[in-house]
């Protein structure tokens, strides 16, 4: 038995759920960014798996979409980490539970 599209989708779903777990349950801003990066990597894995198992592999559409997705993820990581540093300068903390100035 060789790996089919189904097994790749299951692995990708597991990776996405682990990223979601990190983003939802940790209270530290950098852990949340790590979780978001994992979810984006799982989405890229799905793009490539669907491209590889589709019948028309002459046009590299899936690879192109994944390349642009990686570029967007890099921009997101740069701005997100800059935001973490800016928040740390203002509040001297990176625990998102302590950032409650807008709380009524």
């Amino acid at each position: 038995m060789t790996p089919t599209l189904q097994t790749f989708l299951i692995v990708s779903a597991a990776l996405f759920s682990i990223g979601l777990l990190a983003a939802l349950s940790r209270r530290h801003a950098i852990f949340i960014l790590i979780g978001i990066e994992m979810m984006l990597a799982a989405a890229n894995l799905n793009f490539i798996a669907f491209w590889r198992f589709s019948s028309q592999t002459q046009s590299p559409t899936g690879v192109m979409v994944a390349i642009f997705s990686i570029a967007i993820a890099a921009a997101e990581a740069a701005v997100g980490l800059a935001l973490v540093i800016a928040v740390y300068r203002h509040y001297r903390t990176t625990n998102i539970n302590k950032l409650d100035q807008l709380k009524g």
Partner: protein
Amino acid sequence: MNTPSFIIISVLTLAAALAAASIKKLIHAAFFLVAAFLGVAAFFFLLGAEFLGLVQIFVYVGAVAVLIVFTILLTHREEETAAAGFKWIGALIAAAIFVGLLWTILQTPNLSTDAPLIEPLTVKKIGEVLMTDYVWPLQCIGLLLTAALIGGLILVKEDRDES
């Protein structure tokens, strides 16, 4: 595409991702994240997208991981990481979404086909397509990266003249 390498890569990737999500020390989580990204790059190699695997290693392991480590060094305080808690409701939601995704994947028909034989995707082909069909997305990505660069610089710039 053979089964043993697929099993080894998937087990290592998911174990590294789980360790990165659940470990206490932030810097160790960053290193486990690098291992998970290397596993995803190995999946890309396995699926015949070698160029994308190399891009994944360059961008994630070379740039994003270094950025995360630098941010940890700039903002790290030991007692805070220990104090930052863990919400079990998040784990519950993630498990529920995983079960939902798994159920949908297992219900969908025609997913068990084998991969068709393809001619290898060369960098020449990717470059040609990038400069013809995808030239407008490429320009937009360039604009986006410039905007992200300027935005990151403005966000971390110290405004000394204010105080």
